[in-house]
């Protein structure tokens, strides 16, 4: 019970700060009155959100679908590749440099190319962009977690005549968990950016990305901001889910125990 009260009081400052920020934003724009150009006040964004609710909800669902599927595929592939690379040292020596090199390519810039591959109005191209962008942080972090294990822990396992599979299960995977959840938190917001920017170049026309482009083109900035807000909400929900999963999956970890104080 005290834990709950503690958590509420801990979340009070950021909430108060956010509300104060909104109030400042609103009043500054009311005073200077730039006529909603560039940055509309929050009240107008909320009004735009309510007015266009069905359109924004449709866009949120489509973009959310692209994000979730692309994210899931990227995370699964990243983890599998990391397991593979740790299992076979030779694979590590070939794949990791390649992965690092590919990661240096600004993948988001490939969105138009992906459109050519998957079709201009297919969501698959957007999913592919998200997947590729999510893959690398997950792959690189999880590989680090699987390999950067205390040597004495491996020696201990070997002294018990443990098999490689048992060492992976008992030592490497638990050791990689904090790395995995860190990368999950990173890609939860990265995937939103990737999906929306990819949608600027193609995919479903009723998703959030095209909505932002079209509204901005028609100088309806409040509508554009309403769509951006919807995207931000997806990102926040994903981040919160990742943080929750982290908490449930590794109650032993210092970061979790610290937060639970």
């Amino acid at each position: 019970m005290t834990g709950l009260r503690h958590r509420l009081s801990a979340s009070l400052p950021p909430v108060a700060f956010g509300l104060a920020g909104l109030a400042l934003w609103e009043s500054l724009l009311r005073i200077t009155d730039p006529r909603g150009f560039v940055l509309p006040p929050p009240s107008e964004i909320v009004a735009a959100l309510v007015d266009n609710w069905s359109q924004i909800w449709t866009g949120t669902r489509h973009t959310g679908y692209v994000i979730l599927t692309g994210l899931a595929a990227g995370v699964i592939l990243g983890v599998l590749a990391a397991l593979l690379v740790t299992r076979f040292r030779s694979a590590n020596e070939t794949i990791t440099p390649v992965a690092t090199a590919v990661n240096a390519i600004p993948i988001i810039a490939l969105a138009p190319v992906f459109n050519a591959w998957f079709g201009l109005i297919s969501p698959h191209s957007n999913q592919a962009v998200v997947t590729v962008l999510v893959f690398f942080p997950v792959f690189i972090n999880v590989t680090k977690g699987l390999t950067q294990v205390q040597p004495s822990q491996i020696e201990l396992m070997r002294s018990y005549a443990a098999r490689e599979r048992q060492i992976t299960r008992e030592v490497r995977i638990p050791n990689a968990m904090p790395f995995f959840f860190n990368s999950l938190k990173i890609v939860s917001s990265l995937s939103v950016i990737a999906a929306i920017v990819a949608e600027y170049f193609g995919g479903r026309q009723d998703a959030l990305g095209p909505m932002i482009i079209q509204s901005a083109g028609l100088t309806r900035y409040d509508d554009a901001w309403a769509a951006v807000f919807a995207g931000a909400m997806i990102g926040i929900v994903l981040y919160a889910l990742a943080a929750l999963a982290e908490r449930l999956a590794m109650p032993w970890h210092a970061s979790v125990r610290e937060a639970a104080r």
Partner: protein
Amino acid sequence: MTECAVRAEGITKVFNQGRPNEVHALSEVDLAIEPGEFVSLIGPSGCGKSTLLRVIASLTEPTEGQITVYGKPAEQARLDRDYGMAFQHSGLFDWRSVARNIELPLELMGWSRDKRQQRAREMLELVKLGQFGDHHPAELSGGMRQRVAIARALSFNPSLLLMDEPFGALDEMTREHMQTELLRIWSETGTTVVFVTHSIPESVYLSSRVVVMSPRPGRISTEIPVDLGGRDADTRESPGFFAKITEVREALRAVEGAE
């Protein structure tokens, strides 16, 4: 003659052989340890104590020479789970509770859940941590963690206990307490112990024999039998204890002076 617990013959270990960073860690080491003995390895830093321990444990292959453990090749002894190991840093798994850390080797050996849990309880009693089974290692003090590591090393009744500076990170009082505990456990279980330490009093207090090693390349320079009888609180203040400390110190000085 009875079978040796450990018999090392002509052990040489060269790291990075043929490369510019070649290191002769061990040279022609011969060592025979009887079952039930408590042998300490002491010597200057870098003289190969840990390497010798790891060679005995079959965690690294000697470049030359033979190791047998209870008459078996070291590798076979490892596969037969004859070794219990404990290191300077307890090496507990943070993600397992204290009890489940102790159960880990038992799990790998296919013990049933009931037997494992029962055993973990017994071991926790043995190291006086009966109340802490459900805690996570991060909630324990350094000395408590080290006791858990020892309980884990002993949980499956290994016939050979290999310890590398297990009390190195502890304060003096905890350390003496742990030494007493270890001797009690040793006399209760009757296992053979090979114990690496930097502390002269510790080596004398614990061992039935102190093996002094010299560096570059690592070899055994002197073996000092310690016959102080049953240890108790007074042992640390007895003239025999101080005489042995002096003997080991002089042997070490000779080794370091020779450098």
